[in-house]
């Protein structure tokens, strides 16, 4: 009662920037035994923790009403109502607790929760098992796991041919080797 351990408490929702990145080598076990040091600060989730890496996070207790525009990967595990969600060059993940009533545009979209709205991904849409998506999809590639609920149309966009950038031109070698140009300030 008095010595309540912090490691029994649920971690509060945080943004991704405050989540410690999982280190490849675990700390020595003696560190875990120290009183007051949480055993783990990463949230215990049924889905892959790598979803958090480098993503902004809308936690499951957060409700957003309106438009979202992001310039980084975004994980929505809360509720978003109305408007649009745009993450043109980035990945958008609707977590298992996520509920979105909005149109979505992103480079890559992963759905584990519920989406009601039209969805457009310039690269790929991934609808996981137990996800529910009601709306029209426009994408270049799509993955639907068995068990996912989807109602709507699927329009596969042909991959656009990227405009060819002209090759870098290296200055042509001089036709005749001449005298090297004089350095500024050097005597003629």
């Amino acid at each position: 009662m008095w010595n309540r351990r912090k490691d029994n408490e649920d971690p509060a929702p945080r943004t991704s920037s405050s989540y410690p990145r999982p280190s490849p080598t675990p700390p020595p076990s003696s560190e875990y035994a120290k009183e007051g040091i949480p055993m783990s600060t990463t949230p215990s989730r049924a889905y892959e923790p790598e979803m958090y890496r480098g993503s902004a996070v809308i936690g499951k207790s957060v409700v957003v009403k309106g438009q979202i525009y992001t310039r980084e990967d975004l994980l929505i595990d809360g509720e978003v109502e109305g408007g649009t969600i745009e993450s043109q060059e980035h990945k958008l993940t609707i977590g298992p607790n996520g509920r979105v009533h909005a149109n979505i545009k992103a480079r890559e979209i992963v759905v584990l929760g519920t989406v009601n709205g039209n969805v457009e991904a310039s690269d790929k849409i991934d609808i996981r098992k137990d996800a529910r998506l009601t709306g029209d999809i426009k994408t270049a590639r799509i993955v639907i796991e068995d068990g996912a609920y989807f109602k709507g149309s699927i329009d596969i966009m042909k991959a656009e041919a990227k405009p060819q950038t002209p090759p870098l031109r290296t200055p042509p070698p001089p036709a005749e080797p001449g005298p090297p140009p004089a350095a500024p300030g050097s005597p003629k």
Partner: protein
Amino acid sequence: MLFGERWKAIFRGGGSPATPPLPHSSRYASARETRSIRAAPESSSNVRRSPGLEQFFHMVRDTAGLWMLDLSAASQSNVSFVTNLGHRLYTVDLVRTLDETYPAESFFEAQGNPRLAQQVVDQSLNFPAHQFDGALVWDCLQYMAPALLETVVDRLYEILRPNAYLLAFFSAEERAVTVPRYLYRIADGRTLLLVPQEHRALSQHFTSRHLERLFGRFQQIKFFLARDSLREVLVKR
């Protein structure tokens, strides 16, 4: 202990294989209960050659950009196959809509309610007229009582373009009360992968005469009967 073993056997689908025919009035509810507790006997997918599917895609493969309607649960294989042909696909799980609309204990009786029938049509088939160039209906229609069935087929007629094709499957077993339900996954243009689901009650037995009457407004109807007692029906709008 014995009681537990018995239930385990039922959940594994190990109950008596032959379901005795039930009186018409009580068969719906009993069969519906059966649907919810008995797993399909097969645990793995079956591969099936489908002449109906072959003809269906033969009609639509030369033109890209058509609109196809798939009335089963969304699957990667169907989506990939149809979109790789250059078509657009609309998918809606009609059987799931039925299950969400009608109570389990009066599944078929409630289908006589015109308000609920309209609700099913509005939820699942609410499209502009002549929207689709083809419809993959699979075996959905055989789980509908006559009143709802007529409403749904009329709606399918409305949303299909003239000369569009519709592919539907019906059990050809005359005495079957329940049939195993499958998810139909397109392996290639002539082969289906049948993923077993639960056993479901049939609303009625569909003879060729029944089906001709059911699709009476359509231009043509073609039957394919295979060894596994599944009648494939290809209909031209």
